[in-house]
């Protein structure tokens, strides 16, 4: 026989299926004989049933699965590309190892040199980009031309800049364009295109340059990605996670 005190300490583990056979037999017998404990058992048990049958299920939305896979693949792929050389196959030992080591040394040296020279040249611009991004979020100067239409945004820059930025519509990939503005970075006015992902703002800076910008991957909690294409430098910045920002950058470059 177990007491009410023991029964009450066992009733929840009993409902949760965490008791061994002898404890189960004990509490079942007690519940059969003690009305007040049986009443508590019934209340707790029906609470569990209600939760399981009536509470929302909250399955992951379909687009989330696709987005997670996408950003995982992108970060995994990007990490490899950034290292500058592919992973060597296991069989390529022996003579290959020598060549690989030599190439690796050169490659690392080159990467480091690139990073060093790039940091000095791009560090300040990257800093200005972060500052501009933050300003655009806290002030009321996010958009000069609020428009989700690329054919409105692109001509708007005419006469305000001495170049015409390439404006893409990525709404189909869930990166809707919300507008653009002119910002002043690196001693010149440049185009800032503004996109959204859920509640995150992405600023994409576009300006003509002969040398690519070597931006760090992250600054003060913001993720960055820079690339250059046809004489233009692009730098995307957002508080969005790195995977989705890289996805944005890749879509833009397609």
């Amino acid at each position, binding site marked *: 026989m177990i007491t009410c005190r023991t029964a009450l300490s066992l009733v929840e583990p009993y409902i949760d299926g965490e008791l061994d056979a002898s404890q189960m037999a004990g509490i079942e017998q007690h519940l059969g004989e003690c009305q007040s404990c049986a009443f508590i058992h019934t209340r*707790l048990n029906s609470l569990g049933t209600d*939760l399981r049958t009536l*509470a*929302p299920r909250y399955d*992951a939305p379909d687009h989330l699965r696709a987005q997670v896979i996408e950003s*995982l693949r992108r970060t995994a792929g990007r990490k*490899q590309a950034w290292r500058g050389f592919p992973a060597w196959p296991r069989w390529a030992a022996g003579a290959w190892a020598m060549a690989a080591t030599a190439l690796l040394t050169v490659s690392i040296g080159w990467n480091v040199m690139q990073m060093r020279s790039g940091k000095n040249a791009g560090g300040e611009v990257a800093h200005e980009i972060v500052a501009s991004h933050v300003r655009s979020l806290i002030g009321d100067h996010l958009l000069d031309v609020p428009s989700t239409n690329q054919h409105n945004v692109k001509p708007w820059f005419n006469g305000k800049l001495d170049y015409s930025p390439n404006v893409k519509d990525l709404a189909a990939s869930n990166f809707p364009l919300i507008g653009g503005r002119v910002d002043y970075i690196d001693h010149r006015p440049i185009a800032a295109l503004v996109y959204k992902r859920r509640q995150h703002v992405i600023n994409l800076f576009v300006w003509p340059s002969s040398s690519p910008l070597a931006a760090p991957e992250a600054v003060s909690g913001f993720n960055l990605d820079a690339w250059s294409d046809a004489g233009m430098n692009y730098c995307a910045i957002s508080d969005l*996670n790195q995977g989705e920002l890289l996805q944005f950058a890749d879509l833009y470059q397609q």
Partner: protein
Amino acid sequence: MSIADIPVALGRASGASAVWNYVVRKLPSMDDASKLALFEQTILPHLDAAYKLARWLTRNQQDAEDVVQEAYLRAFRFFDGFEGGDGRAWLLAVVRNTCLSWLGRRTASRSTSIEFDEHVHRATDEAESVEEVLIRNSKIDSLRACVEALPVEYREVIVMRELQELSYREISEVAGIPIGTVMSRLSRGRMRLLDCMEAK
């Protein structure tokens, strides 16, 4: 080892656990492509569980999506530390930590608001009368509101036990608390729920 071996190595039967351990030990030396393939097979299938926990902890769909995205990237970064076994519990621990640091950031910047805009009602049985449907729907709403009103340390154990059917041991692993604490928090959480439902 090649990626092609992984599906075989991951057979669900317990006899496969030796192979499993072998695969997992190889993790730190795998290239990213193989690592990702293994990750997609072991951790990705638990997306629904990850979202469900994040959804209940953040109480908001958009934030839950953000947290899940971030948690998955984090989980992949720390995948070397995965020691095999239950991928779900391992992932949920990452999701929980991501949620809690997210909630910390959130309360530091602004107070949280509970959103009631998104109504998730289940398909109702045709045999039910209108009154029955009304009672049922109001019960659904109050149940959800009561769970959402729980302090997060009670809410997480209630969600993991009642809605995700984790065992006490699994909850203790995910939340990093002793089993005794799991039991007492569950019990207090249930009492609060019962009181809340009665007050509605």
